[in-house]
């Protein structure tokens, strides 16, 4: 009915393919969306060549944030960490196929921030990671 709730988003929200945890994992990072308190954790398995071989996310969030996490992880499996570092805001918006205002954008970008903070080995998932 509305762009924001395209079927693909509702589908990934209700039936995510990459929800869960990975044990063992090579990279694991978690952080919050300061605006709403939503929390997300991302675990990665990475090959010796630096290629993401598996990925999972866990935590709570709205349809936008959960669907974008699921879509994001789906899209990075098989990519190198170097490629992951290059992912930005527009990449996510393309995956979701929607326009978002500044507040909902934060929901959509939370998983990317957490992913990149993990890949870079940072303390915190800052906004500058996705600019």
């Amino acid at each position, binding site marked *: 009915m509305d762009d924001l709730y395209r079927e693909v988003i509702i589908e990934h929200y209700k039936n995510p393919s990459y929800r869960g945890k990975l044990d063992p994992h090579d990279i694991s990072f978690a952080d919050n969306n300061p*605006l709403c*308190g*939503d929390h997300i954790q991302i675990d990665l398995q990475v090959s010796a060549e630096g290629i993401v071989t598996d990925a999972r996310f866990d935590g709570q969030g*709205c*349809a*936008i944030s959960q669907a974008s996490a699921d879509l994001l992880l789906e899209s990075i499996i098989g990519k190198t960490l170097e490629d992951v570092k290059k992912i930005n805001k527009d990449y996510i918006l393309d995956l979701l196929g929607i326009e978002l205002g500044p507040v*909902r954008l934060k929901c959509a970008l939370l998983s990317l921030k957490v992913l990149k903070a993990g890949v870079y080995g940072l303390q915190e998932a800052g906004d500058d990671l996705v600019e």
Partner: protein
Amino acid sequence: MTLDLKKIRNDFPILGRQLRPGVRLTYLDSTATAQKPLQVIEAMDEFYRKFNANIHRGVHTLAEESTALYEGARERIAKFINASSARQVIYTRNTTEAINLVAYSWARANLKQGDLVILTEMEHHSNLVPWHMLQAERGIELEFIPVTQDGLLDLDAYKTLLERQPKLVSFTHMSNVLGTINPAAEIVHLAHQAGSIALVDGAQSAPHLKVDMQALDADFYAFSAHKMCGPTGIGVLYGKTTLLETMPPFLGGGDMIREVKLRSFRANSLPHKFEAGTPAIAEAIGFGAAVDYLTSLGMDNIAAHEHEISEYAMERLEEIPGLKLFGPSADKKGGVASFILDGVHPHDVAQILDQDGIAVRAGHHCAQPLHEKFQIPATSRASFYLYNTKEEVDLLVKGIYKVKEMFG
């Protein structure tokens, strides 16, 4: 006297807004910020068109006029809360700055390691973080009056905490999530009996209840204009004169001084001692217009109207299957309805309601610890003010059914 809603709604231009073709605004987010009546918008507009000048130091006509308007607003705000003197009304940016002023000036001069500050589990971040910072810096201790499952403060637990001789009890008059109206005068009285001073966070009470500094007897009371039909950028710290007079200044700069030498200064008298630099002049004047507006409607009438809407909303919302409301029953709370809906994240609730122009807030509403207590990360919150109607409650309920359908 009941409010003339038709007339009132005409005072608020935004309430007539079409968000999208065919979609009218239903504003149910006044707890975050209230809408502004023409009387307030025009007072500020007029100030900039006719009177704008910096205050206090100018002898020219505009400066005399703007000073009189700025100080006149202070007088009316003082009267609105029944303060004994306008000197007790210190302009700040908002409630948050008012509480920080107390934390920086009063608390840093009076609290030492091990001193106890009592807060509650239902505080807004603005009445938590300043004390967290002081705890890290000074080693003060923090204790919290627990919140019961039905959203009330546990006063027995409070009385037990008081035996530990706190230096300060700082608590919200009304919860911005649960809507709970706390027995503020009683809590203050008990604090005083235990030898403590008391700060009341009035961010949600000043807009919705008749507050009276003489009856409340709080040592400090903090509130924001933007939540009570006034502009952004201005709030107030009220304080008892003897406390304010003995407190060191907070921000240093122009206007808060009596005399400045190259290497020293003497502070000005109240209230100027705490107002450094060019203040929010137009905003103070807008705030004055806002309290005039509220006074003209009558705070008792406003509270009665909100109560009626709120009671109706509770009834209607409770009927919705899978919807859980937080907070006490309607007789113990203000016009706030925070809820969760089975299987739907609050953000999605708010977003889908927005498609029909219904503005509610979703998130932790700057009260994360309270949400943690109830083991939920977020709620959706509809809140009601003097301009809301029962028809708007009906739209909300209809919208929630639509949400359920989409995620069903």
